[in-house]
């Protein structure tokens, strides 16, 4: 059996592809691109939520939010490690992020303008992410699938926390309810767009499904998310900002309006409300930290040579 046949047979048998296994170069590149993009999203995703840590309205909410943002950094670390098994270093990936050669989820290019955004981001953005990630626990690349199992557990916790913030606001004062509705109005459509372009226009979907990287298509996942989320909005007493939203009893699905793909592509291509500041912030932190990383390396080198000297001395 040649290498390609062996790879195909493993996919067909639903066995995982592991880092030391032979894989087509395009599969490797696709996996690196996807895992890196996911890792970058976790890292950039710290910014919009980190934005409210210093202003969280209670100490309990502050603690929950800090823990959540910490989880995201942890997910990033975990995912960069998974990408590294494919023969790329974290420094290379960071550089690709900083220079715009790799992307992160466009959802983080929208600003968090009120406390309710901490609820809406958890409820909708994490909710959409989980819908996608539950599928990815069955993805064909082993390290990515295993990372997803752990990440999904924490993400579903975040999603519940976000929903709970919304619930508290919706049971609160008029101003709090208005804040919650405004957050839903702003995050609804970008959340639907998170699943990516429609299947018919998605450049990667067909190949990714064939490689069992994706197990469901963008449109299927989007539908699943809408079906799950609309009843939750009803419990909150909030209105989804879509006049075309309607329950299709025959299909047992919600039908929803047309996503503004021009807006989506504009944000993907770099002209969203926060693209520039998100990357600028990340690059600044990295550059400001250069002297710290250099000092750590220098000190480690010196400590290693001192240990060697000491060991050599002992041998003599």
């Amino acid at each position, binding site marked *: 059996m040649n290498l390609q046949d062996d790879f195909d047979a493993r996919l067909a048998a639903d066995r995982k592809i592991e880092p030391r296994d032979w894989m087509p170069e395009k599969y490797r590149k696709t996996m690196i691109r996807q895992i890196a993009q996911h890792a970058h999203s976790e*890292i950039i995703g*710290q*910014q919009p939520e*980190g934005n409210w*840590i*210093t*202003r*969280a*309205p*209670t*100490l*309990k*909410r*502050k*603690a929950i939010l*800090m*823990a959540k*943002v*910490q989880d995201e*950094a*942890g997910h*990033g*670390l975990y995912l*960069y490690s998974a990408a590294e098994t494919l023969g790329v270093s*974290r420094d290379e990936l960071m550089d690709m992020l900083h220079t715009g050669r790799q992307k992160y989820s466009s959802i983080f290019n929208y600003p968090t303008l009120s*406390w309710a955004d901490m609820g809406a981001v958890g409820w909708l953005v994490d909710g959409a992410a989980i819908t996608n990630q539950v599928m990815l626990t069955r993805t064909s690349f082993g390290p990515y699938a295993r990372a997803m199992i752990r990440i999904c557990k924490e993400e579903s916790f975040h999603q519940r926390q976000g929903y709970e913030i919304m619930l*508290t606001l919706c*049971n*609160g*004062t008029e*101003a*709090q309810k208005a804040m919650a509705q405004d957050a839903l109005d702003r995050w609804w459509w970008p959340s639907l767009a998170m699943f990516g372009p429609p299947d018919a226009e998605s450049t990667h979907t067909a190949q990714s499904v064939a490689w069992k990287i994706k197990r469901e298509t963008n449109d299927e996942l989007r539908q699943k998310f809408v079906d799950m989320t609309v009843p939750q909005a009803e419990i909150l007493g909030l209105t989804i900002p879509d006049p075309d939203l309607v329950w299709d009893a025959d299909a047992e699905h919600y039908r929803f309006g047309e996503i503004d793909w021009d807006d989506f592509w504009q944000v993907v291509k770099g002209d969203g409300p926060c693209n520039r500041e998100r990357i600028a*912030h*990340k690059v*600044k*932190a*990295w550059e*400001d*930290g*250069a*002297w*710290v*990383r*250099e*000092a*750590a390396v*220098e*000190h480690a080198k*010196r400590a290693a040579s001192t240990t060697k000297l000491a060991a050599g001395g002992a041998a003599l």
Partner: protein
Amino acid sequence: MSPLLTYVLRHADDNLIVAQRLGELIASMPDLEEDIAVANVGLDHLGQARHFYDYASELDPDSRDEDQFAMERSEREFLNATLVEQPNGDFAQTQMRQFLLDAYQVPLYEAMTASDDARLAAISAKAVKEARYHLERSSAWVVRLGAGTPVSHEKISQAVEYLWPYAGDLFYADDVEEGLAASGVAVDPATVRPTFDATVADVFASANLSVPDDPYARMGGRTGFHTEHLGHLLPEMQSLYRAHPGATW
């Protein structure tokens, strides 16, 4: 305010204010590991603050809860030492502030575990484990930066120079500490100082740093006479809470 309530708030406020400062840094650290660490340490301090506020709430005649203590008091009512309200500055300043606080909190909490006050003993028994870990981390950074490159050495030296006078405020003692220490409840800060000094001498020696000999200390935090920095930190922290009086979050 009873001496015990004052004492408890002094320690609650140290932890809340430093947690608030660390919270400002998330997603701005030199690498991913430090982003995780800064959140972790910040969360520990926030947790310690909440334990102290919890106890303060029981001692308070008005039964104010943790959020009322954190969000409804003004600058003059906060009782933290001036060290913790100092700005993050660069990475060296952040780590030096942390190191000075850790070098104080470890012996403080160790002594507090022997308090005749069961609540203080219980709170510090948990906190001391966290403080030891914080000290290990911040000491390692002070050494790395001090004995790293000429640039890092210069930056950490500047941080020592800037922060040293505020570290003195950690050891402020008045009737509150002295009275409660006499009755076996509080820790007399003077008894913590030798351990603090020894830790500083030890770590600074490994970091090629000299311990400043300037005896000046900027006191006042424990009685609400703060540096101007706190007046900027509090409005940010309290803005949302105060904009919606009586709301539940």
